[in-house]
């Protein structure tokens, strides 16, 4: 038995709860993904039409014979009980095989993959814009609480929170793009034109997050530790920046995790308005064409992104808040 140093035992004592905390969250995320997979798979049995027929047509067979259809049905295990179908589907999905698009016959993942970067660009820019606006707005409001900057920003957030992304998109498209010629109506997904759609997407998130940050900052500023820091001689700026903001960032982080879902979802509609070539507008085409595997793939991709993003946010919170990762040892 080797010599186990005291230091390494102590390191283990500190690491163990952290490892446990991370492990729990990752396990939960994996279970959730499994649960989502049931919903995603479930979309296909719900859909009208015969998947085998559609599949053959997608591969270019115009008038499939009964034997061909029967063969494909056996292939896809469509005559077996539902749970078995699910397992088979899951097995294929885990290996990346999400079936093929009924329209083009190409693998769904490949089609979505081509258009994913555009959506990521749009959502990512929107996230960035919303964060910057929320941080700036929230800090200003807290620093000048109840004075005119606070009032103006609060009024703006009231309006902004009530402006759904797609309304803004329509307005902006009509009055800014068409009237003033800023940007292009039929953008090709290039980054030069991402600003306008991203702003429309970001506005309602920014408004929510600004309000939340403002409230969290004011609450933190009213806490005992801020009073004590003030009694030690800290300046107002220091109190806001070093004490209030880190503590207010934690609830904001949680809200961002939740709001990401709205960003990903709202992106689909904004893409439709601005004809932004992302997976959102693609899935809308697919829906009109009754291309169900694409719909499944879309939900799968968005679902996975959302769960991953939430997990990252959770782990970030774990890193920032020592109370979550170390138990009370006193």
């Amino acid at each position, binding site marked *: 038995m080797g010599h186990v140093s005291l230091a390494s035992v102590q390191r283990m004592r500190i690491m163990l709860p952290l490892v446990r905390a991370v492990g729990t969250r990752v396990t939960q995320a994996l279970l959730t993904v499994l649960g989502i997979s049931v919903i995603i798979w479930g979309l296909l049995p719900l859909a009208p039409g015969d998947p085998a027929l559609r599949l053959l047509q997608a591969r270019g067979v115009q008038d499939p014979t009964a034997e061909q259809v029967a063969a494909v049905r056996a292939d896809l295990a469509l005559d077996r009980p539902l749970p078995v179908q699910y397992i088979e589907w899951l097995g294929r999905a885990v290996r990346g095989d999400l079936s093929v698009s009924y329209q083009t016959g190409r693998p769904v993942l490949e089609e979505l993959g081509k258009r994913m970067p555009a959506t990521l660009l749009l959502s990512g820019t929107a996230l960035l814009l919303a964060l910057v606006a929320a941080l700036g707005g929230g800090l200003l409001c807290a620093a000048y609480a109840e004075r005119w900057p606070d009032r103006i920003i609060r009024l703006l957030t009231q309006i902004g929170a009530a402006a759904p992304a797609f309304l803004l998109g329509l307005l902006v498209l009509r009055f800014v793009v068409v009237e003033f010629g800023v940007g292009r109506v039929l953008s090709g997904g290039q980054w030069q034109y991402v600003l306008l759609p991203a702003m429309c997407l970001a506005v309602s998130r920014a408004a929510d997050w600004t309000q939340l940050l403002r409230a969290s900052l004011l609450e933190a500023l009213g806490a*005992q530790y801020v009073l004590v820091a003030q009694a030690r001689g800290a300046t107002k700026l220091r109190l806001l920046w070093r004490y209030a903001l880190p503590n207010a960032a934690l609830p904001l982080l949680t809200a961002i995790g939740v709001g990401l879902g709205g960003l990903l979802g709202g992106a689909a509609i904004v893409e439709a308005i601005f004809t932004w070539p992302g997976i959102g507008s693609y899935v809308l085409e697919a829906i009109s064409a009754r291309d169900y595997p694409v719909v499944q793939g879309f939900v799968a991709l968005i679902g996975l992104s959302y769960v991953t993003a939430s997990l990252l946010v959770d782990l970030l919170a774990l890193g*920032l808040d020592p109370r979550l990762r170390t138990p009370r040892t006193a």
Partner: protein
Amino acid sequence: MSQPVVHCRDLHVRYANGAHAVRGVDFALAPGECLALVGESGCGKTTIARAILGLLPPNAQVSGEIVVGSHVISAAAPGLLRRIRGREIGFVAQNPFAACNPLDRVERHVAEAWHAHGQTPPPGRIGAMLRGLGIDRAAEQMRHYPHQWSGGMLQRATIAAAAAHRPALIIADEPTSALDADRADSTLAVLRATGAAILLVSHDIGVVQRHADRVAVCYAGRIVELGSSAEVFAHPRHPYTRALLAATPRTAQGLPIPLAGTPPRLTEAIHGCAFAPRCAFAQPACQHHDPPLHHGVACPVLYPPGGAPTINVAREPETLTPPKRAPHNKVLTPVVEARRVAQRYGRGLRAVHAVRAASLAVRPGEIVGIAGPSGCGKSTLLRLLATIETPSSGEVWLNGELTTRGGSQRLFSAMARNGFVMPIFQDPLGSLDRRWPIWRSLTEPLTAPQRMKRPDAHQRRAIARERLAEVGLAHLDLEARPDELSLGQCQRIAIARALIAEPRLLVADEPTSALDASVAAGILRFLADAAYSGTAIVIVSHDRSLLDILCDRVLTMEQGILS
């Protein structure tokens, strides 16, 4: 005295809502002296402390003169105030966990004393300070976060931060309220060892008695008595001081005597002495005169301005007839009996043994007290006795019948669910449903299905009216919601609700901790009277003197073990 460390002259503080929180306060503190401001909630003591630091809300108006050392605080520019804070005046807050930024290590919290002024702490100084305050393995501990420290240790760390620049004055705002009794003394000792003059704000008479040099008793924004701690406690002169000491278990002779009435509303002008409406010695002159401190007492009848005492200082105020105590009959079946009950939460290595093999029997009319530090399992034991929880092992018998049993033959009988045992909780507001009018909360036990005659709404209101009168709330609006009432009123309603079920057992978990002494004394009276009527009472409290006065027996609990 030599140059005082801090000097207040005719200090007035008015808040934005019109409340005149401090109405002319004068005092001075000598170097190294400890002056305690005592009083009940709303008396202005915290406001005075904050005013000296300049930490009142921005729209509070301060008039009068405050001088700290050579600086005139009351007329100081914000920049000067900021430089003085932390360097010449230290501050210790009530709750050490709330006082530390939970995201910062303890080391950082202490270092703030330097960082706030743009300086860095001398290397090794923080570790040395913490070691000096009795924190062992300081170098390792200070890298931990506040939630990993115990309350007592963390409060010492905040004292280290407060005393970092060796200020001449330290203001301690209820430094021991959030700590256990044994920690309180060591905390104050540490505070005094810093050598600074201490302005101690506290409502804990015991701590003040043991550690303060001088005492200032505050009422309705004024200091009504000021003198050496020994003198004030041995020979209190002002009627309010005497009433306060008579209401505090530690200093009362026998069961504490409650004080009727409430302090005046500070939003309205007060004519004459603020205490007159409640004063046993009141004379007509008290309505017009409100003199400043004269011989250390501000009372128009004891020491009228420019005259000799008009009434005999030594005269005792009227006393209260002590409650009747029933003789105990050892033959009666115990109302509740716990046989080696234990409670364990969680499993395996991480299990928490809240209660270990406790045995206890309580007979009708008996009052049993359980004392112990926080976290020792008192509340869990109470829940086991009330059969709110089933023990993990052991048995609980109610009225001679087995009610709950833990272990392999788990048993839970709903026998207790008929008002046999009723609870009293620490938080008076939380005890009542916030949306319900008080008549509804009060008479709720009467609507239990097992009861023969269940009154309708009209009858319930009438019954509520009667019961409220029994607890001194005869003219209270029946439709009032708990948020509209004071804590003392809510607790009295909670007791009335508990008693309306005619329980054989009352379990009270810190029933007076949230209340002022003058109000708490009344609660204790109700409990004593209920015991006389035959109800057994088990009461948990951190205040040992309260338990000694009220209870027939006091048991101590430590880490789950009852003795």
